Every structure is written in C-alpha cells, then in structure tokens.
C-alpha cells in the first residue's frame, strides 16, 4: 500500500511551529515535511496536541512562532494566513468533525470546494466522483442523510476539488466501522497516487503505520520520533507505547 519513499523536495515544510490556545502553547517547536505523492501520519496519545498542530498549520489557529511553507516557484510562507486563504496556496484542510455542510447536497458541497471559481467545476466534480464512486450515487442527497463514511468521502472530495498540493486530514477514520476505515485508507492511497501530499492525524496507530510512508510521533506537545512508517512499525518502544505487545511486528 505504501509508496516508494524518495527524498524528493518536500511540498510542505513546517519548521519549529509552536501553537496553542490563548497564551498557552500546546505544541512546541514541531517540525515536519511532506513530499508530493506521500502519506505522512501524525500519531500520539490522546491530548498530545495532534489536532492543535494541524489547526496551526491550516490557519484555524494562529501559530505563536515557527513557519509553515508551501514549496513552489517561489516558496510561499503561509504561516498564520487565515483559513479562507489557504486554498489559494494549495493547502486543503479536512477537520475531524463537522467537515461537511449538512443542509447542502453532495454536489453543492463539492462546488464549494472550488468557491470563487466558475470554470471547470463540473469536470472536477466528475473527477471526484471517479475517485469516490460512492458519492456519485448520492449526489442529490443532502449531506445530513449520508453515513459517517460517506461524509468523510465527501469532505475529502470537497478538499480535492481545489486541486490541492497538500491535504491536512484530521482523524478520517474516527467513529467509522473497520470496513469503512479500510475504504477511507484505500481512498487516501488513491489521492497519494494522484500526487497529492497527505498529512494525516490518526488514532489507529497500527493501521496508520501500515498505510503511511512517513510518520511523526507527538507526545505531550513535542515531536518525539519521526521516520519511515515501516521502520516505526517495528520500533519496540513505539510498539509498546501505542500498538501493544505482539502486534507491532505484524
């Protein structure tokens, strides 16, 4: 499932980012990078600051220090940009909860993924339906009647509408049945194969390390470990902390 990880130039570079609520930092000096066509996961115990870090990267929280840079010609420092501007820089953020507009139909939700653009919307919706065929059959339904799995697909599809370079996804499998968790990871793999850089916060450590190319471990607001996912999967300390004896080596 994992891609061949190369040391390509990263698309997203986060350097020493400190994020918190009010004046209290929750995540301190976190650094990471994600390349095109790569899935990087952020794992760690509950309350370690994973979602806070993601919000800081996406502009939903204003970082206290550090930088978030999208590579390009030229590189764009997007640190602290408001969330509504992030799309323009090629970054899409999919929150964990409340990630669809319940009173809007599937098609309307997708259209909003290209808000402000008139051309090519229909073609892009067809592309998203090709990636997420489940959505096509439900396109006239309002999002409030979709199942949890379909809502997650819709949130990912909407993020995909704007042709992002980077997608930040917060716990896409939370609350889903094991079957749908597999489906979501399969779709994330397809997004990776299309060249998108994916940074995914995930609670299910075992599955995350199984599916990802690169992994970061956040504990108590600090980045404690990083490396290739397949290496961390056999890291004894990590296995003991997050996965459980006898499961890590698969």
């Amino acid at each position, binding site marked *: 499932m994992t891609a061949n990880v190369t040391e390509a130039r990263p698309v997203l570079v986060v350097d020493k980012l400190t994020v918190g609520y009010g004046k209290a930092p929750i995540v301190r000096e976190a650094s990471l990078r994600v390349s095109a066509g790569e899935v990087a996961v952020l794992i760690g115990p509950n309350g370690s600051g994973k979602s806070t870090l993601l919000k800081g990267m996406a502009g*939903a929280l204003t970082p206290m220090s550090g930088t978030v840079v999208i590579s390009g010609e030229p590189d764009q420092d997007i640190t602290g940009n408001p969330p509504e501007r992030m799309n323009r820089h090629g970054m899409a953020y999919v929150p964990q909860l409340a990630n669809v507009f319940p009173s*809007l139909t599937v098609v309307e939700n997708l259209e*909003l993924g290209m808000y402000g653009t008139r051309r090519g919307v229909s073609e892009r919706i067809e592309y998203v339906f090709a990636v997420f065929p489940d959505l096509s059959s439900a396109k006239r339904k309002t999002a409030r009647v979709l*199942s*949890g799995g379909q809502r997650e697909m819709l949130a990912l599809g909407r993020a995909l509408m704007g042709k992002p370079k980077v997608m930040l996804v917060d716990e896409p499998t939370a609350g889903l049945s094991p079957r749908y968790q597999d489906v979501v990871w399969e779709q994330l793999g397809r997004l990776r194969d299309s060249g998108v850089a994916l940074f995914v916060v995930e609670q299910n450590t075992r599955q995350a390390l199984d599916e990802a190319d690169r992994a970061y471990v956040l504990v108590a607001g600090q980045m404690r470990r990083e490396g290739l996912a397949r290496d961390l999967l056999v890291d004894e300390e990590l296995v003991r902390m997050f996965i459980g004896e006898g499961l890590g080596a698969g």
Partner: protein
Amino acid sequence: MSGFGQALGFGIVSAALIALSAVAMSMQFGVTKHANFAHGELLTISAFTMVLMQKVTQNLFLDAAVGICVSAALAWVINKTILQPFRRVVKRLIIMLIVTASVSQIVQSLLAVGFGTNYVVLSVPSETGRHIGPFVWTTIDVIIIVLAILVVALLHILLHYTSFGKAQRAVADDVDLARIVGINSGAVISRTWLLTGAVAGLAGSALAVTIGTFSNLLGFTFLLVTFAAVIVGGVGKMYGAVVGSLIVGIVTEVSGYYLSSGYKQVIALGVLIVVLLVRPNGFFATFVADTKA
C-alpha cells in the same frame, strides 16, 4: 360574500406583509446566528423615508425604492460599525441581543427627535376593494401579495442557484468550515445584512402604504408578529418563515372577525405558544442524522 372570506382575504394580505419581514429576519438569523431586535427599525426607517420622499415626489414606487435603499444601507452600517466589531471580541449571544436592542432604542429615539412621537401620514390614493374570488382586495393588497411571492421566489433562486446563496447556506451551516473551504464569511455576512435590510425595507414600505399613518414605533410593534412567524416556522428557516407568516397572518385576521381586532397581538402570541408546545423547534426544524457507517 361571507365575512369569513373577507377576513381570510385580509389574513392573506397580512401574511404577505409578515412574510416579507419574516424572511428577512430568518435569513439574517440563519447566517449570523443571533436575533436582531433592531429589525423593526429597518421597517420604520423605510416607512419614514417614504414620508420624506413624498415631499419631493408623489410616486409611491420611487418613494418605496428610496426607502428600501435607506433600510439596506442602515442594516449594512449597523453590521459594519456595531455588530461586526462586537462579534470579533464577544461570542456570547446575550451580548449581541443587548447590542441590537440598544440599536433599536437609538434608532427609535433619533426618529423621535427628527419627526416627534406623533403619527406621521403617508398619502396613499384611496381605493375600494374589488372582489377577487372569495376575497376583497385593493390593488395595493394584490401588489403586496405578488411582491411577497416574488421575493420568496427570488430568494429561493438566490439561495439554491447562485454562488453567493450557496455560500450563505454554508455560512449558516458552519461558519468555521465555510472559512476553511475558502469562503470569506465576513463578506457573506455583510452582504446578507445588505440584502435582508432591503427586504425588511420593502416590508416597511408595504406596511406604510397599507396603514398610511404610523409613528416611530411602527416596526417595533410589528416585531412581535415577525418573531412569532419566524419562531413558528423554525428559526433560521426561510420557508418555515413563510409558513409561519401564513399561520400567524391568517389566524390573527380570522380570529379578529370573531373577536375584537384588539386581540390580534394576543392571538399571535397564543399561536406562538401553542406551536412551541407541540413543536418546540417550530414546524421546519431539522435534525442532523447522527449516522456512522
């Protein structure tokens, strides 16, 4: 012709007037998530602008058009200069309600300073009603009914077939998510105030033409029936506001046929209480399915 039929006809006209006011209030509430107690003053300012304009022109449509523009401008200014700065620093609903109630009092007082507290008169050509089916309506009554239908239809088209309308619905659903997908929620809210101010202005003009004489409390007294219609229909639901307006308008007028017309406000409140007992979230309340695969 039965008196009941005539009362029903009056009820439909009354419902049309309430609907114009209620759809504006409902749309504003849906997007901003707080009630606006100064909504009535948007109606009043439009009506008083018509009175002023009559000194310049005798064209009621032109007078109303200016009134609508002034009301829209006032709504935009209230949001931009007072509500928006408060929203940035205060998230508490009660504060926003107090702020809008204060704005209501300020506008009422300014109108009292400018026009006094006595009734002003808007000259409207007198006409007798004509039988249209079982109803007796004047030309102005028919225009108001047609306008209400037209406004609701146009707002439906706006909400479902335009980029701005879809952005409005997105902001109404979840303002934080709307920002994440790239919608400038501040601009959407600002334009919504402009739009709902214009529709409220239309309601004020229609109300002024219907009753002819009014004071600086015109809109404030109309606020109760507007709230009743909005709450009966389901707060923030435009189509609910239309249904709520029909219920409140028709029930109050028809009951006025059997009881004294002085009980109209009491009847409106009674309808509100009964509906809230049966459907606490109004007729058009929606519930998000909490389904997981």
